């Protein structure tokens, strides 16, 4: 049913730290790796080794340059995947009921057996989180690794989304954003986690932590005087060497 479920208390999602993301794209690769072998149709590539390769990905890393009014510009790496919105416009537009939001944990999923590949959900999503697989003809999107997080066949430390598990800089966090005491909720609270395109009213579950303020270039460290060169006149062995080299 493509009506949104009643508001659930559990809101599983990701918290992405734009301060620590180094833009390595490891999450992109681990996501493609896990999701092409598991839930639903594989994530196909077209012309993978040819002139114009393209393919389906559920997670992509953009990079932006931000220029403050004063001071140096900053580069910010920006991973983007489904935000599992509370008011998900992609769900209600679906004509077949293939697109749905789970009542129990808020994950937005596609039932590929009911998808007609009309692409309307991808049009309704502001974030570009859905891609129509060109080989299977069905809509693909982040599943929050629903086949990992509850999977008791995996060691406990692997029961989190592949992108979170693989991130080498700890920039991705997974948890219940509906629980105010969860580690992710506290992180959002501490760091001022934000929504993307809040004006569109989608109420994303995933939050982004803004980059921490940068040091100002004109601040001089109190240890700086100690770092200044202290020997202006050379003496001893180096002095002797210096003088003799001059003579040659």
């Amino acid at each position, binding site marked *: 049913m*493509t*009506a949104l479920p009643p508001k659930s208390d559990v809101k599983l999602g990701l918290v992405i730290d*734009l301060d620590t993301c180094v833009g390595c794209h490891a999450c*992109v690769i681990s996501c493609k790796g896990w999701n092409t072998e598991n839930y639903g149709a594989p994530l196909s590539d077209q012309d993978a080794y040819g002139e*114009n*390769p*393209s*393919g389906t*990905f559920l997670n*992509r890393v*953009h*990079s*932006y*340059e*931000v*220029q*403050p*009014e004063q001071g140096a*510009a900053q*580069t*910010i790496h*920006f991973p*983007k995947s489904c935000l599992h919105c509370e008011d998900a*416009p992609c769900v*209600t*537009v*679906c*004509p*077949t*009921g*293939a697109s749905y939001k789970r009542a129990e944990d808020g994950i937005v999923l596609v039932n590929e*057996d009911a*998808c*007609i*590949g*009309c*692409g*309307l959900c*991808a*049009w*309704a*999503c*502001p974030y*570009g989180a859905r*891609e*129509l*697989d060109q080989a*299977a*003809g*069905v809509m693909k999107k982040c599943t929050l690794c629903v086949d990992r997080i509850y999977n008791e066949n995996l060691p406990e430390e692997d029961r989190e989304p592949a992108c979170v598990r693989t991130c080498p800089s700890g920039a991705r966090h997974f948890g219940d954003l509906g629980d105010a005491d969860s580690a992710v909720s506290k992180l959002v609270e501490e760091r001022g986690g*934000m*929504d*993307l*395109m*809040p*004006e*569109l*009213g989608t109420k994303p579950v995933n939050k982004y932590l*803004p*980059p921490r303020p940068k040091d100002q270039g004109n601040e001089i460290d109190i240890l700086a005087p100690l770092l200044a060169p202290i020997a202006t006149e050379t003496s001893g062995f180096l002095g002797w060497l210096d003088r003799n080299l001059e003579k040659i």
Partner: protein
Amino acid sequence: MHPAPSVILFSVLSGLGFGMLAWLGIGKPPMTGFSAFIFFFVAYALSVGGLLSATFHLGNPKNSLKAFSQWRTSWLSREGCCAVAALTVMGVYAIGAIFFETHWMFVGVIGAMLSVVTVFTTSMIYAQLKTVPRWNHWSTPVLFVSLSIFGGALMTGQVTVAMYGFVAVGLIQIFAWFISDSSFSKSGTTIETATGLGNIGKVRMFEPPHTGTNYLLKEMVYVIGRKHAAKLRLIAIILMIVIPILMIGMGAQHGIKAIIAVLSHVVGVFASRWLFFAQAEHVVGLYYGKRG
């Protein structure tokens, strides 16, 4: 947005077909027998042909029947349900007109209303999308429905109604273009709100996530054809509105003038609908630094 030929073909042809059915349903023209058959044949060919062409747009059409299930929330599903209902009810009415020389008025009026509602549901598929500010406006359904009604009037020979109607449609079209040109910037969605980085400063795309293209760029960040948009708009309004009005003014009830009026109108609607898609900007383009 990518102006997919199947979707343009669908929305133009089925719009005209359902517009014709709406007039036929209220007994205009009051035909029976073989001449009624001709009118119904054309109306069904357009509306059903349009619906079939829309299925070519689907990636996985084998599940199409499921698309009738979600009418409570989905405009696309509502469109499917209304289209089938309109075609069924009008089919009953057509049988009466063709084989029994009678017009079952009650059936016809219901069928006519369903036909107009079908076109309205089509327009709402686009108008509902907040992600495409150019479409997300009441002028979208007004334009689609009025084009269908008065295009249908032309096709069913209601030339006087069509002539006055086209004046209105032309004004609505120009108004819609005028409004929609600033709708993206007025929507308040920018690369700063998209990334949430506006507090720090001015945001610029530094490096895209992929060097090649992808589904998102092909489908929603379509940029070809904007260069000639102003010329195409002029061509669209001349073909869709001005020439048909002139032809009707010169007495296009039958014959070559009527054919010119119809062909010109249809080609003009195609041009207008192509622009409707090609000019529409999806907010996801902001993430790729392609807007504003």
